[in-house]
Structures are given as C-alpha cells and as structure tokens.
C-alpha cells in the first residue's frame, strides 16, 4: 500500500547511514581486504547499489506471516464464523463459497487482478505491467522488489485481500443463492468493483492520499476501510435487497446452528486481523507494532461495547454479541489502524460496538431487509464509521511528518474521508446493482424453493455436513 511507505522515524537516519557506510567502506575494502577483492567495483557503483531497494529479511518474514494470517481469516476463520450462523442444512454451502473463492480469486489475481489493481499509477485503473505475473516473478535468480520486500510478497499479501473481500459478501445472500451465479457474480465484482477501487485508493488513483488527479478524494485507508469493508458491506446490502429474504423468514426460527463455530471463527478473525492491519505496514516496523496494538485494542473494546449494550438492554450478554462486537471493532479500526494511536483504538472500538449493535438490531428490524449474516450491519456500518473516525483520530505522531492530520489535532483529513466514503458507496451500489440485475435476468440469482427447503448442501453440492448417526 503505497501511502504506507512513510515509515517510522528511525528508518530515515538508518538509510542515510547505510548509504554512507557503503560508500566509505568500499574505500577501505579496496585498499585493505585483498582477499575479498574478487569483484572490483568503484565507489560510484556501490552508491548506486545502495539506492536499489534491498530485501529486509525481517520485514519480509513479517509480511509472509501476515499473508498466511490473512488467508487464515477467510478459511478457517470466516468460513467457521459464517457457517455457524446458518442452519445446519446450509453449513457446507457457506464453507464451500469461502473455499471456492479462495481458489478462484487467487487465480484471477495471478492472471490479471494484481495488474489491474497495482499496475502503473493512472487515475482509474491499473495497466498490463504485471499481467500473468510479468515483472513480479523472479528472473535470473533475483526477485523484483517493492520497498524492502519482494514484489511477489506484495502481490501475495494483497491477493489475500482480494479473496476475503468477496467472501465477506457471501453472508448477505447466505442460504439461498445459486452457487453457479455466485461464481459468475464474484468474478465480475472482483474485476469491476475491487480492482478499480483498490487502484484508486492504494495505487495512485483518484482516492489515493495525495494524488494529483483529485486531491479532495485522497483518502486515508491504512488497511482497507474503503477497499475492503465499505465495498463489501454496501454491496452486501444491495445483494440482500435484490435477492430477497429467505423463505419462511419471520415465521420459522432460523437460529445459528452452531455458535461454537461462530465464536471460534471470530477468535481466528481476531488473530488473523493482526496480519491484515499490522501487515499493511509492509514491514516489521514500529508502525506495524502501532497498527497491531490499535487493532487489538479496538477488537477488545468493540466486544465490550456490544456486550454492554446487550447487558443493559436485554439483561444478559451473549457470546454471539461479544463476538459480533469484536468483529465490529476490528472492521472499524481497519482504515485507521496505522494512523491513529492505539489508545484511540479503544474509542473507535467502543463506537463500533455500539453502532453495529444498533445497526444489526434496530435498523435491520425496521427496514426488514434480510442481510442474513449482517454483512451490512457490521462491515458496511462499521467500515463507514471507521473511515470517518480515521479522519478524526489520525495523527502525525503515527503517520509521521509535521502536518496535522485528524480533526482532533486540527487537520482536515475528515473532508477527504467523507468524499472517499461517498464515492466508494456509489461505486459499490451502482456496479453491484447492475451486475445483479443482469445475472437475475439471465441465469437467475436464487435456487428454487424446493432446493432452498432442502438446503444448499444437498441441492448445490450433493453432500451433508454432519452424519452423526
């Protein structure tokens, strides 16, 4: 994520020092260390060498780890979280959608997705620079670099986001969407919503912090508030509205069939989110630590806030509530994780827990859309709130530089945040609406009534989840 190249302060002197060392050292080397002089090079060459980005194995270790963590978020994490919430007869359907998306989005990313998102730096969309992994893969035994890590790793890390974002949407149309239609929809959604948006925000496009094309759109989005959570949460709402409620909603009970899965999945999301947010520092820097801490604090206070709401308004806190609050806190801190102080994360988490509680209970009940697993209520609402609160709490102490950033320190980032959020809402609504309308008219969105009653596990995949007999 390009704007995250601003690293914490200690790096700058270190870089200069390294460069100086390189130059000076070669003088000494040339004169003294005869045994090492197999490769005579001039001081000028050495200085050039110092400018070439050098792989920092520690940074790299952390981003490789983060990539693994973010994949773990989709499955087992999200797969478990979501599958526990549906009825038994649809448990495999949900897991299948997560696993299949892991496979499919990865291949798309390799073929053209990464290039569309991160190739070049035009205002609207990437270019063909990285098509089919050109300029990403090793060549002659060396890997092209992106900052202090190989571009391969940048591609991998970002690719994990390309998986989880559509996977989040799955919760909105759970228990009723045709599997084949879901497949087609996600290919299109990834191509026409995710890739452009990612390019706008993180690769120099019109929502890139400090871009020249559309400065007022320049958003602070450290780890995916707009790109991941708003985009998926808003699209989810559109999906829920267009596909309609589940058969029997309101008359038949549809409680979560296995809350232990949901809770264990939420815990995995919490753990994996450290990769998501702290990994977005693209190195094992002080900034990564700060993002890690903010993430952790927001998750914790989000869980407390939701539990408190339940305790006060309904007499007792539920496990599902605590877990929902944790996820809400995590969603909300995402855009600001590397821009606000960790202690602000506590406030952001509290706000998220309360707001998403309200969205998932009162709001949803009032408007009667069947966002089955509350993707809008948590990711749409939490993501939007997070984008705005980033404009409030972001600080130069974390971002570096001397200009005021968030509203609290007198900065004006909040304006850009509002603009970028509005644009993201617009993009998500329009494209998702159009795509679904087309699919509805052609291959159809929903399984037949018969199949819905039978459950997706049997009707779509010919399997049963649990055969305990």
């Amino acid at each position, binding site marked *: 994520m390009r704007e995250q190249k601003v690293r914490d302060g200690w790096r700058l002197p270190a870089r200069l020092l390294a460069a100086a060392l390189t130059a000076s050292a070669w003088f000494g080397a040339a004169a003294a260390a005869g045994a090492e002089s197999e490769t005579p090079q001039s001081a000028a060459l050495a200085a050039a060498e110092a400018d070439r980005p050098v792989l920092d194995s520690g940074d790299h270790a952390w981003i490789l780890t983060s990539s693994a963590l973010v994949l773990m978020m989709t499955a087992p994490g999200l797969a478990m979280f979501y599958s526990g919430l549906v009825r038994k007869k649809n448990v495999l359907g949900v897991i299948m959608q997560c696993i299949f998306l892991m496979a499919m989005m990865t291949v798309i990313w390799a073929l053209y997705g990464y290039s569309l998102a991160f190739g070049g730096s035009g205002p609207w969309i990437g270019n063909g620079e990285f098509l089919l992994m050109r300029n990403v893969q090793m060549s002659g035994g060396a890997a092209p670099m992106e900052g202090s890590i190989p571009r391969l790793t940048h591609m991998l890390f970002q690719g994990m986001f390309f998986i989880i974002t559509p996977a989040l949407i799955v919760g909105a149309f759970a228990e009723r969407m045709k599997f084949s239609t879901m497949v087609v929809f996600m290919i299109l959604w990834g191509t026409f919503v995710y890739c452009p948006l990612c390019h706008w925000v993180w690769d120099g496009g019109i929502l890139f912090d400090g871009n020249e094309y559309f400065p007022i759109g320049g958003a602070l989005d450290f780890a995916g508030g707009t790109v991941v959570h708003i985009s998926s949460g808003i699209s989810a709402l559109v999906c829920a509205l267009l596909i309609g409620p589940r058969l*029997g909603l309101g*008359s*038949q*009970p549809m409680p979560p069939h296995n809350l232990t899965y949901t809770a264990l999945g939420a815990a995995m999301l919490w753990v994996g989110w450290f990769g998501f947010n702290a990994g977005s520092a693209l190195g094992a820097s002080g900034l990564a630590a700060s993002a890690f801490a903010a993430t952790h604090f927001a998750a914790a206070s989000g869980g407390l806030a939701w539990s408190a709401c339940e305790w006060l308004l309904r007499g007792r806190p539920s496990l599902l509530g605590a877990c929902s609050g944790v996820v809400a806190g995590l969603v909300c801190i995402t855009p600001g994780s590397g821009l606000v102080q960790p202690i602000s994360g506590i406030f952001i988490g509290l706000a998220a827990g309360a707001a998403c509680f309200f969205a998932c209970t009162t709001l949803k009940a009032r408007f009667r859309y069947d966002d089955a697993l509350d993707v809008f209520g948590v990711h749409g609402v939490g993501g939007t709130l997070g984008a705005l609160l980033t404009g409030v709490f972001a600080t130069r102490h974390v971002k570096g530089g001397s200009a005021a950033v968030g509203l609290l320190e007198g900065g004006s980032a909040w304006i850009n945040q509002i603009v970028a959020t509005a644009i993201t809402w617009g993009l998500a609504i329009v494209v998702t609406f159009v795509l679904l309308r087309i699919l509805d008219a052609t291959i159809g969105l929903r399984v037949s009534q018969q199949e819905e*009653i*039978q459950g997706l596990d*049997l009707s779509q995949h*010919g*399997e*049963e989840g649990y055969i305990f*007999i």
Partner: protein
Amino acid sequence: MKKIEAIIRHFKLEDVKSALDEQGVRGMTVTEVRGFGRQKGHTEMYRGTEYTVDLVPKLKLEIVVAESAAQGVIDTLVQAARTGQVGDGKIFVSDLTQTVRIRTGEVDGDAI
C-alpha cells in the same frame, strides 16, 4: 385416551404447533426421526462413492388426547401438515390404557 403419532416434515412444525394450539392441545412430544417411504431420497457423492440416501429426516409428534378430542386433532394435523407432495407423512392412532402425570400422580383425563 388416544395416542396420536404423526410423522411430518420439519418445516411444518411451526404451522402444526399453532394449529394445534388453536385446537386447545396443550402438550406434545417431538422426536427427530428418519423416514423411508414413497418419497425418494437423494444421492450424495463423496469422492469416488455415490450413496443413495433413502432415509429422509422427519419429525415425529406424539400427542395424547382424550378419546373425544382425537378426531379433531387428526383433522387439524392433516390440514396443517399437508403440502400435497409425496412425503407429507402419516398419522398413527392407538389406544392407551393409562396416563399419569408424574408431578402430581394424577391419572388419565386429568393427566394431560
């Protein structure tokens, strides 16, 4: 005292319950069962193997009522549990010789 056993579809439970409630039935016992009958099952595939599952999940309701109330309950059941598709289920009626409420020791008519 009659014991009415009804095999019904899962998703009809709520409908049946509220229909019986209107009828004045105040108790019943529900069991998860698997039924085999004219309704075709389905096939499941696991890697190389295909299974024909002809045992379909059903619910069994047991309702004990006074002799006089039995026919009404049966009619209600037939109406509320029907979809018209094969697999709607069956009702079996039998006689009880005695009924006891454990809490009070009351018997027969008073026990239900």
